[in-house]
């Protein structure tokens, strides 16, 4: 029998969670391998956000376990999940309007207790990766929707994440912004970052993910293998 570490970077087993009496997650099981980019396609209310909330400590499952490598992280508080290496973005982007882009990134670096020079390097790298150089000292109320989306990803990356969960990263992006976003995410994937990308349709996911799981009524209904997939 293989250990959880051998099974994959993230393993969720039999998750169950109800909200207001309705099953948001109904016995969901999923494995995400190291370096893999897994798409999670599903309509409104299918359970995508609920699953990400449970994995990242923003909601507790009623049943089931969440494993990060060999570590059982079920029910851990959100900040401990981040410290363990899971970063996330939100379906509706969350930023503090009065803080600048740089301050958001500095705040996300706090728990890593890095030396000042290393902090500056990490910030510069995240800013460069997500093309935020021109707005790094701008307060976030003045950013465009695309810039806010990119800031969210930069914020998640800078926490030292090894698994990035993206909740509807393409929502509210215009046709001019989509290619840049897909290109940035592809680059992260190429660099070896493990990603779970939730989206309503699978059109954009096809361009980005190794596999696409379809989620319906809180459970995975099918996981077709994408062309050229590196993972079964």
């Amino acid at each position: 029998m293989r250990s959880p570490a051998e099974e994959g970077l993230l393993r969720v087993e039999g998750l169950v969670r109800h909200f207001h009496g309705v099953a948001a997650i109904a016995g969901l099981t999923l494995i995400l391998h190291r370096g893999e980019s897994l798409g999670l396609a599903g309509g409104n209310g299918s359970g995508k956000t609920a699953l990400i909330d449970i994995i990242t400590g923003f909601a507790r499952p009623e049943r089931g376990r969440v494993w990060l490598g060999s570590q059982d992280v079920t029910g851990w508080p959100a900040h401990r999940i981040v410290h363990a290496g899971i970063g996330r973005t939100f379906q509706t982007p969350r930023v503090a309007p009065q803080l600048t882009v740089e301050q958001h990134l500095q705040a996300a670096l706090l728990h890593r207790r890095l030396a000042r020079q290393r902090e500056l390097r990490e910030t510069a790298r995240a800013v460069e990766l997500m093309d935020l150089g021109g707005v790094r000292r701008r307060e976030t109320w003045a950013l465009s929707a695309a810039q806010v989306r990119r800031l969210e990803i930069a914020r998640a990356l800078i926490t030292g994440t090894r698994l990035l969960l993206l909740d509807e990263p393409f929502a509210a992006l215009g046709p001019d912004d989509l290619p840049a976003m897909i290109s940035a995410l592809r680059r992260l994937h190429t660099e070896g970052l493990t990603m779970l990308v939730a989206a309503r349709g699978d059109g954009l996911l096809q361009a980005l993910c190794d596999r696409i799981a379809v989620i319906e009524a809180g459970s995975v209904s099918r996981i077709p293998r994408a062309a050229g997939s590196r993972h079964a």
Partner: protein
Amino acid sequence: MIVWQVAAAFLPLAIAMAAQDRFMLAILAVAGAQALFVSGWDFLGGVSGQISLGHALPFGAGAYAAAFLSGWGLVPPGVALVGGALAGVLAGALQGMLGARLHRVALALLTLATAEAGREAARMLRVPWPGGIIVGGNGGLPAAALPLDEAAAARLTAVMLAAALTSLLWVSRSRLGLALRLAGADARLAGASGIDVAGVRIAAFAIGGGLAGLAGGLVASLTGRAALTLLSLEWSLFALAVGSAGGLGTIVGPGLLAYAFAVALQWLDVPGTARLSLFATLAIIVTVGAAAGVRTQPSRPRRSGILNA
């Protein structure tokens, strides 16, 4: 910007140094302590975004602790102030722990309830005192006075206020301050940024409570009594109204406005019942004004205001 803020923090000290009249110096001494109390509230409500309606609890706890320690002769009055600050830290941390997962209205109600519970507990308190008498109840506890004349007392509280404002400015710009601002703006965002939201919230309550406790100890030592009224809603509303009107989260603004307000109230000898109405009215004006600010500037968030905290 920071230079001017630090300079402004020393304005009360300049006033206390310039004042000569003993009556005015006595007023300035108490005003400095009351401004310290409001500064603690502003750090909590303005920087960390946790609006407390029960800041009177650490204020009263500090006063009672300092009065007990100095009144019983356990420590000199100056050292009793440290005891008052520690009592404030504990009272604030207790409020923080109870309210760590609550937001806005629920947190405000919880802090109000803790302060009212503290006031009722203090009302029932009876303490044997040196000389065989029993003190407590509505009369509060007698406290040993600081061995200072009016000028020294006014300057001491002004120095403490300046030190507190300068320290709070530093903390609000530190790593803890950044974590507090993010947690105050959006707890989920802060959690996703790796910040222990409950932990930093409790820390803010402890810091704000410590300043309130120190202020309470000072008031008790200056007036010779830890009065039951120090635990009353009047003081919590004073902090909320003046702290918000002075520029929520700006640190120096609320401190200076509280200093001026406290001087005026004592100078005019405004009675306690009128003060409660006055502070409640000011709180209404500030709250409604802040809401109007939101409506007139929809594209840009306000930098201050109760509703935005």
